[in-house]
């Protein structure tokens, strides 16, 4: 089984404050990992570091394969003048690739269909509800055919229907061999989800695995 992620003794500091202190974890293909913990526990810092957005102060990070990252909904600029499809297709961009192909368009539209937002393709994102915009971000992530998918609080504020759509899509990509790492502060978000491993973070360290 291919290892998609290996984090060893990761330490992340903001100035003098240590947000993550010696965390080690792995994620294999087709594996689902939930990272939970209270606010300020260091879980969002951890996933940002895995996404390559924060440098490790010490320790090492190894990733293999294509990665997609879904940031927290709160990070989104709701007022940005863009259509849903314009946002989704950016998920197919990669280093060294400047133009979209016909295949990219197809993959973006397929991802939108899977998430039930195909009809919203031409809508401006400022007119979408919170749940619809979260699905746009997820469609953007999966249309890049990721082998490692990182989700930061994807369930926050989702209605029951969107929650079900989200986990159906995740199960689908897990079965395709993608490893999924999801941060959630609310353990009830993953009630009834049988697959996956839970890592609890407290004070920047792993408290339960």
């Amino acid at each position, binding site marked *: 089984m291919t290892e998609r992620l290996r984090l060893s003794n990761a330490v992340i500091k903001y100035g003098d404050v240590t947000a993550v202190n010696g965390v080690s974890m792995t994620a294999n293909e087709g594996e689902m990992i939930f990272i939970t913990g209270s606010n300020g526990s260091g879980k969002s810092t951890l996933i940002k570091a895995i*996404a*390559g*957005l924060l440098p490790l102060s010490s320790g090492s990070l190894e990733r293999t394969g294509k*990665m*997609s*990252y879904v*940031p927290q909904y709160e*990070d*989104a*600029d709701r007022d*940005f*003048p*863009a*259509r849903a499809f*314009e*946002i989704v297709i*950016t998920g197919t*961009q*990669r*280093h060294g690739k*400047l*133009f*979209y192909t016909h295949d990219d368009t197809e993959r973006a539209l397929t991802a939108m269909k899977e998430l039930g937002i195909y009809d919203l393709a031409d809508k*401006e994102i400022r007119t979408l509800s919170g749940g619809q915009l979260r699905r746009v971000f997820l469609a*953007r992530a999966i249309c*890049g055919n990721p082998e490692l998918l*990182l989700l930061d609080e994807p369930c926050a504020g989702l209605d029951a229907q969107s929650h079900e759509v989200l986990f159906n899509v995740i199960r689908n990509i897990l079965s395709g061999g993608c490893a999924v790492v999801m941060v959630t502060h609310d353990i009830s978000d993953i009630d009834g989800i049988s697959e996956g491993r839970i890592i609890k973070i407290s004070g920047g360290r792993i408290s339960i695995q």
Partner: protein
Amino acid sequence: MNEVIDLLSYPFVYRALIAGSLISVCASVLGVILVLKHYSLIGHGLSEIGFASLSLSSALKIPAMYVAAPSVFIASFVIMFVSRKYKTAGDIAIAAASSSALAAGIAVSSLTGTASNMSSYLFGSVLAVTENDLLLSVILSFIVISVFIVLYNRLFLITYNEDYARSLGINTAFYQLIISVLTAMIVVAGMKLTGTLLISGVIILPAVTAKIIASGFRSLVIMSGIISFIAFVFGLIASFIFNIPAGAGVILMNTMILIIARVVRLKK
């Protein structure tokens, strides 16, 4: 009307019209990115640094662009670097650099007795546009529009969410550098025509107006270019009719279009 047609028979008028239209359209297209990335003040900061360097070149009696171009380029890199490194300090860096540069420019021109030359740098002059400036603006426009078309998808991604772009393995600092270089080029090329005090308006006002009307990013870029072109042509004509500096005419025309767009939008 006849007066306007007569005006076009003067070479300096059509030079100003062509050079200004090209620079305005390029500035407004870049302005879309600067406005959406909350770098609206960068044009203002760079133009005042340009003013200081023009004062210095006038005092030293060396060609203006030899001092202005490198100064503005270096300043744009510094401002972008500070904005990236310290996310909240970008506006502080711009405010500090621009007011210090303006003060230095005024001091140099007063001390060296060249203050009378400064009026055309501050407020712009259509008479100042030479054949070389026209050629420069054509080349510059070709570069800006070509870069924008080739990098359109990338610039959209980085403008919307830089963190997400970085997570895809894209070198966002490189694209930031390109935006800095293009902005510096536009500021240097536009300073003579609209004046250092007003070039930032040419960069941001059309994008702000287009944001009210347009739907989607592509439409925003196109609308911004069209609005800028219309505002420049009619602003320049108005500046001849009312005998005011070209920069003032263009900016006031942009402001008028912005107000009309806002009022029409509110009524809908």
